[in-house]
């Protein structure tokens, strides 16, 4: 995966990822059109398919709304890189097949507009601007299986 970085801070909560006023629908296209609206109203207009969302600690804290990872995925983001994730968001992302990666150093170093390369198979993140490569620990086998089957329902 190669894409542009959209960088945000710590504790990005699900209320700003997709405000509750839009939870009267679960239409992925509608949700995507309001993604991160209360944090950065320009996000939807500048994100391109295959881009990365990069943030600090506790990304996705707050409510359990699966509409949050769904909005991010449907907006075109191919992977979220953060220092850490809130646990329900972590589950939801895995369960719907949105790749997420925890790596404090890579998340810290990346700046808005960076072009990043992430290879989940080899467990590497590369930042060409800095010429730095970061190792990421592989997911446990059970979680890899969920991702490989396109989400939890694929294992039913």
């Amino acid at each position, binding site marked *: 995966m190669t894409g542009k970085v959209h960088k945000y801070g710590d504790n990005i909560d699900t209320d700003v990822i997709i*405000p509750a006023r839009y939870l009267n629908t679960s239409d992925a296209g509608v949700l995507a059109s309001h993604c991160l609206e209360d944090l950065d109203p320009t996000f939807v207009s500048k994100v391109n398919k295959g881009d990365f969302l990069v943030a600090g600690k506790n990304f996705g804290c707050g409510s359990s709304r699966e509409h949050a990872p769904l909005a991010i995925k449907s907006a075109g983001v191919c992977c979220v890189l953060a220092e850490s994730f809130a646990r329900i968001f972590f589950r939801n992302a895995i369960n719907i097949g949105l790749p997420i990666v925890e790596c404090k150093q890579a998340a810290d170093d990346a700046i808005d507009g960076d072009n990043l390369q992430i290879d989940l198979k080899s467990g590497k993140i590369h930042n060409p601007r800095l010429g730095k490569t970061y190792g990421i620990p592989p997911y446990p086998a059970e979680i890899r299986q969920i991702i490989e089957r396109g989400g939890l329902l694929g294992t039913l």
Partner: protein
Amino acid sequence: MRMTLSQKILAHKAGLDTVTAGQLITAKLDLVLGNDITSPVAIRQLEKAGNRSVFDKDKVALVMDHFAPNKDIQSATQCKQCRDFALREGITHFYDVGRMGIEHALLPEQGLVTAGDLVIGADSHTCTYGALGAFSTGVGSTDMAYGMATGTAWFKVPSAIRVVLEGRLAPHVCGKDVILHLIGNIGVAGALYRSLEFVGDGCRTLDIDDRFTVCNMAIEAGAKNGIFAYDEVTAAYLIGRQKRPAVPFYADDDAIYEQTIHIDLSTLRPTVAFPHLPENTHTVDEIGEIPVDQVVIGSCTNGHISDLRAAAEVLRGRKVAKGVRAIVIPATNEIYLQAVREGLIEAFIEAGAVVSTPTCGPCLGGHMGILAEGEKCVATTNRNFVGRMGHTSSEIYLASPYIAACSAVLGKIGSIEEV
């Protein structure tokens, strides 16, 4: 075996003698919960997976509480999807307008959760039932769908933080102040991926409603679950209510905890979380003049009968300050009726507050009290994120029912000493 209370329940439900932190397990569920926002997504997934039926029609609960009574056509459509599904599947515990309440007050009240249970719910505040000695945790709609189909879920066994409570709370200090104090201490990611296990002699001094409030906001510290061990307070609440016998579990004496935190309840002061994170806490003594436009007393955090009694104690014989909109929302119909019988509702209305049918409504910026640009609200709810209750420039101050009611009377954030 050195297991925490949470680990003991998970091991039992996974059919294992022992589990350790970090282990991935599959465990059997006693109840799977969803609401009118999260269930439609799960229902559609089951339909896509070949119209899978639910594993047990008695072990699924669907509660229409977030945007109900419906605020618009789309919300009505979502509730209809749930209603049709419940009818088709013969779901026993489907709660609609007239029978419903806010899910995390309703399920314990109806006896659907008991000690030793393993519960998942597609709502982050599912962690509330730890107050009953259950392991319960919030998940998303896909986990809910999988749980409804199979009666199981995957879990990463959490490590735990032990919170030792000592002493007794002073009058007008309550469970909300305990949990806000803790979140202020460890931060919104302080218990990330972990259990918060509450132990110590101070637990006995907390009534069941206080325990519900404490466990409810475990998620606001990032925790997977919050839990109190079963004791005489739990037993007194469950008796005559629970649908099946309680199965008490206790942590091993030599259980491994990542961290231990001591809280002397007698030293706690009423605490307020300032915008825009629940960790931005200040005691009421440190607060300057903060005028308020709206006060909300209710939610799954503080819509219990004891919360309404606390609010009524302040509001009875007093008036809501001019320019303040005070909204009281009993968490369930049973609580509402009890409040009517005790004269609490009369006290609220005479004070100039409005009383709403049970709903999550304003807590998540749904309906029944949305904030305009720049407005300030004192709420007994659980989150004060940017835009949570309305405009992104509005501000939410999280506090106890006492502080919320006092603030309504004063027109600014304040405590019982100032009323």
